[in-house]
């Protein structure tokens, strides 16, 4: 069963520069949260803290008995539950797609029969499994990245700009798969600049600005408050209003 993720007073700084400060929020099983914000707002840092790639300077992230703090990195058991689709898909160029998939399955200790290989078919990569990763286009590498993220059936999926470089059909298939994970009780966190693409999928929106979480609220509530039909319209209206919306959980 997926455990909720609880973030308390999370902060990260590089030198004297705080890139994330005082972030408090919770992500619950069975929801898709869209992380948005301008460039350098702290989205990637927040994701990296969650993934255990970056150690916070203050605060904590707790989930399923694991707590990440400045002094404690997440244990491998925490990472078993996590899938990650990075924005830049870069792999060892001389390996084939098949070898990469085998490597990741080996690392996770998953037998081939336990893996979810439907997406390989869906994304049309079955015939390309023996191609070298160095010979693939950016879009195909992104497809491989999506397969890696979903293949081990994670409970928590973090997607950093997942549709960047993907054609519209593939993008919709990847997002549909994220929706199925949510329906199965997983937690999906997505950062994206293309709100139209993910707004139908998102349950809540987290808006980060200058390292602070300005709001976290359900999409429906955002639309109701602003009277807008689309997130792309609702967001600027919400930001321009003087109401400083606090974290809604």
């Amino acid at each position, binding site marked *: 069963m997926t455990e909720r993720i609880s973030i308390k007073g999370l902060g990260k700084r590089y030198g004297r520069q705080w890139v994330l400060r005082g972030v408090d929020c919770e992500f619950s099983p069975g929801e898709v949260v869209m992380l948005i914000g301008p460039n350098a707002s702290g989205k990637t840092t927040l994701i990296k803290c969650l993934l255990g790639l970056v150690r916070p300077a203050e605060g904590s992230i707790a989930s399923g008995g694991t707590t990440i703090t400045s002094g404690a990195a997440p244990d491998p058991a925490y990472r*078993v539950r996590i899938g990650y689709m990075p924005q830049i898909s870069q792999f060892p160029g001389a390996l084939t797609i098949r070898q990469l998939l085998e490597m990741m399955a080996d690392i996770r200790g998953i037998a081939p029969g336990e893996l979810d290989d439907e997406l390989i078919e869906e994304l049309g990569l079955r015939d390309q499994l023996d191609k070298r990763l160095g010979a693939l286009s950016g879009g195909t590498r992104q497809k491989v990245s999506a397969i890696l993220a979903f293949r081990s059936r994670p409970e928590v999926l973090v997607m950093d700009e997942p549709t960047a470089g993907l054609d519209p059909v593939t993008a919709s298939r990847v997002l549909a798969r994220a929706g199925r994970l949510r329906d199965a009780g997983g937690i999906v966190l997505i950062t994206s600049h293309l709100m139209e693409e993910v707004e139908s999928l998102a349950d809540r929106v987290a808006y980060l600005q200058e390292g602070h979480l300005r709001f976290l609220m359900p999409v429906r509530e955002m639309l109701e408050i602003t009277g807008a039909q689309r997130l792309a319209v609702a967001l600027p209206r919400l930001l321009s209003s003087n109401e400083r919306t606090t974290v809604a959980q």
Partner: protein
Amino acid sequence: MLKVFKYTLIDLLRNRFVLSYAVLLLAIGQGLFLLEEDPMKAILSLVQVVMALVPLIALVFTVVYIYDTQEFTQLLAVQPMTRRSILLGQLLAMCVAMLVAQAFGLGLPLLVHAPGSASLLLSLSGSALSIIFVVLGALIATRLREKARGVGMALVVWLLFVLVHDALLLALLFTLSDYPIEPWIVPLAGLNPIDLARIIVMLEIDLAAMMGYSGAVYKNFFGSNMGMLVAALIMLLWALVPGWGAMRAFQRKDL
């Protein structure tokens, strides 16, 4: 660790840079043996080439490879494995790839043209230098965030070991020639793994005389079994200490 090692090695053994390095060493080795009638003279020339080229290639290759695979390393770090396993697997694979290239490019001509203890020692010294400089490269790449600074630092480190250390040593010996500095000559050589490797091979070829007065001191110390053991231990330390530093930096690093 073994999983990372296995797939990184598969990738590296098909890497163009590694293949080119093997071919370059083969061309140099074969060329020198064909040009020189006396195999010992060829080995002597090869010593100079190996002592400069092997550390340079190992350093630059490691630094560039680590920076270029940064995104993939991030993906590995999200998998259920420790960072120690990731770095150890990658380092081991890089060392083995360098050693395979060296065995093909350097070992083959040595085996064909001059089989013997001098060739064996040259191969072993070159291998030790490969490992040491791969580890030093890893230390640089894990401590510095920017690739350009990392590559720059690698070149500075190489210059320090290949040129600056020797120049300083010579200046020191010349300046302090009126004082009893013999006890310091051996420890000073230990400060530079390239010098140490060169000394060991030169002693085996019996060309210690080329190193002048200090050659006699080296022969006296490293000529014995105990001396060789000390040299091997110093080389081991040159691999272990930077390796420990790289591991420590990688485990604390924000990826």
